């Protein structure tokens, strides 16, 4: 899937946090890394159609994304989005969290939607948890169900904003394993993450977002082995400092 940013920018209260970003490449699995406040979430929300840019353009496969509510609703429905935490609907059980959008947005019948939800839960080994509300589930289960909800309608692209940052380490790997398995099935995704091992080994491309600009971009392995800028070098060494 070809993603192109053309002088894309975004300001909040007069302060620019994304500066005239240019990007044009085929994306299958992309990790976005960078220090806090660098604009990673802002960029992902714009790509996901959740935030309107202040300037510039975004196109997907050569088609310009029109940032008005009427065009954005179907655009968002064609993507999957996973939040850092708390993205499951509190008042619905796990099964309904997956089935409701399938019925309301994608027009599936009640039976078909429930069957699809059950199928995904079973695949994740969560068949027994279908009746539970999000608060009754562990953080790792919640995130896996959030991923299941995002992929249920078969989106063209999955966007994940720090899907494991709010998790205890023991749950992090079960979520990363799931994303890895989806990749093996051909799922395309963009993930914002601090899990450098995952970014390096599970994502083909890597973007280093620093102070509102794409500071470095390229094949993951290459960026890890051979950072071109002192900023990326410092960022990597800081995150790897305490690694066993």
């Amino acid at each position: 899937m070809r993603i192109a940013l053309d002088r894309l920018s975004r300001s909040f209260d007069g302060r620019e946090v994304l500066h005239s970003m240019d990007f044009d490449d085929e994306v299958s699995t992309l990790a976005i890394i960078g220090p806090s406040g660098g604009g990673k979430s802002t960029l992902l929300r714009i790509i996901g159609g959740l935030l309107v840019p202040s300037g510039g353009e975004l196109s997907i496969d050569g088609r310009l994304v029109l940032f008005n509510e009427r065009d954005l609703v179907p655009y968002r429905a064609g993507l999957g989005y996973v939040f850092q935490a708390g993205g499951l609907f509190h008042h619905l059980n796990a099964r309904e969290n997956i089935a409701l959008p399938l019925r309301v947005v994608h027009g599936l019948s009640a039976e078909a939607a429930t069957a699809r939800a059950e199928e995904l839960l079973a695949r994740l080994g969560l068949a027994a948890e279908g009746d539970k509300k999000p608060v009754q589930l562990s953080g790792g289960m919640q995130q896996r169900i959030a991923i299941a909800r995002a992929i249920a309608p078969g989106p063209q692209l999955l966007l994940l904003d720090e899907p494991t940052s709010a998790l205890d380490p023991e749950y992090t790997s079960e979520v990363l394993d799931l994303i890895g398995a989806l990749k093996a099935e051909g799922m395309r995704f963009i993930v914002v993450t601090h899990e450098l091992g995952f970014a390096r080994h599970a994502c083909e491309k890597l973007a280093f977002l620093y102070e509102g600009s794409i500071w470095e971009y390229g094949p993951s392995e290459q960026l890890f082995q051979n950072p071109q800028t002192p900023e990326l070098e410092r960022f990597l060494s800081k995150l790897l400092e305490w690694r066993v």
Partner: protein
Amino acid sequence: MAPITGRVPPLRAALNYLAVCVLVILVFWASLSIINVSLDFGFVARYATRIGDGFVLTVLISVCSMVASLVLGAVVAAGKSTRILPLRYACDLYVRVIRGTPLIMQIYLFFYIIGTAWGVDNRLVAGVMILSFFEGAYVAEILRGSLLSINETQIEAARSVGFTRVQTVRYIIGPQMVARTLPALTGQFASIIKDSSLLSLIAVIEITQTLREISATNFQLFEACLLMGALYLVLTLPIMLISSYFEKRLDYAS
């Protein structure tokens, strides 16, 4: 003392509750015998129709006021976040003045000045209007509080799965607000029932006024008071139980 956590076994809870009730009744009984009062509820049968009518009117006033104050409260809650400034400030002023002054003052003021000036001379209609106006300010605050407590991420998640604005309200915000407001709104209904007793001040013949009139002729003030308390509890206790049931049932939002 350490706070009690976890559930008390039901039997133990019931026995302790019963013991407390018995104790309260004993203290009351002792007080009555100290001041040499013996109770005689013979008048209840004599005035059964009037008491029944008063009771029904209290229920009627309360139900009407509940519905009207819900509508008013919803409008004011929405008005408090509108971009039309005069409307926003009007809603704000309304809530502050109503919540900041006693109901008794509002009843006199509205009935004798505004009611007289604009020709609302049906006491029942005026009473329901005044009570709805009073409770509406509290309902507005309940609704507004729960609207503000809806998590941003929930709305963002709803947009991300492709819901339109209307679908987001219908499937996510609406149900979550109902779950959050239902306990408080049922509690508010109990308040309305109690507050309606003040309408006796403008001679609406609801249950308080009925019993006041009866005790003015037979001088059995204590009995009238006790009966009044019992009749209000008949209405408010079940409502309080429903409220705490909702609280437990719908307690899932983190």
